[in-house]
């Protein structure tokens, strides 16, 4: 398999998170990942989108999948690591970050958002 990229842009609305979950599952199926790994990635991407939904003021969220033989890299725009104290759902979002860091192999926050890596064995 070559290096493939898939880009998904959704409106910044909770209605579209289930679409991201379905798309993520379907995409992971192509990467020879097992059911547990697919579930981990699906949950992590959804949590990254929830984070972005709460914390970005942009109209849309960009999700980028980069797939090669060794790893799956997912970037979600607008997600941030430090949740502001005045956010009403602060505790939920902190749980979200804890879940992402536990389920993915590598997690980096940068100025764009979050980058999550799952290695393919």
């Amino acid at each position, binding site marked *: 398999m070559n290096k493939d990229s898939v880009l998904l842009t959704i409106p910044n609305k*909770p*209605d579209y*998170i*289930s679409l991201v*979950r*379905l798309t993520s599952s379907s995409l992971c199926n192509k990467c020879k990942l097992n059911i*547990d790994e697919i*579930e981990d990635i699906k*949950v992590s991407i*959804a*949590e990254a989108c*929830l984070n972005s*939904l709460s914390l970005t003021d942009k109209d849309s969220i960009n999700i980028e999948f980069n797939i090669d033989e060794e790893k799956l890299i997912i970037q979600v725009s607008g997600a941030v690591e430090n949740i502001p104290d005045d956010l009403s*759902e602060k*505790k*939920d*979002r902190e*749980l*979200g970050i*804890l*879940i992402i860091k*536990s*389920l993915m192999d590598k997690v980096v926050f940068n100025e764009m958002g979050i980058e999550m890596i799952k290695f393919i064995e």
Partner: protein
Amino acid sequence: MSFEANIKYDEVENLWVIQPEGDMDIYTSGDFKDNVIKLFEERESDLLFDGKCLDYIDSTGLGALIGILKRVNESNHKIYLSNIKPNIRKLFDITELDKLFIIRGEDNE
């Protein structure tokens, strides 16, 4: 991709039995929490969440369960969880929420 919750009172065990079905996420958790707390306030007792039909939960759903637990604890009642699927149980482990709820069939009951 849908969600509903079957809720009924078990007169034998004297507790609310709540069976969420489908995906408990940002779209569905808020109403679920409000409904459960409303019923609890009509008749205060322990709660049993039966997870056999729950396919997915996100941090918003976990937050809703914590919110329900806070209200139930205020009245000195407990929440039991049973039949939680492994993918969801994993999230309770990661977030250490397994220590806040009583999981039926395990040591902490």
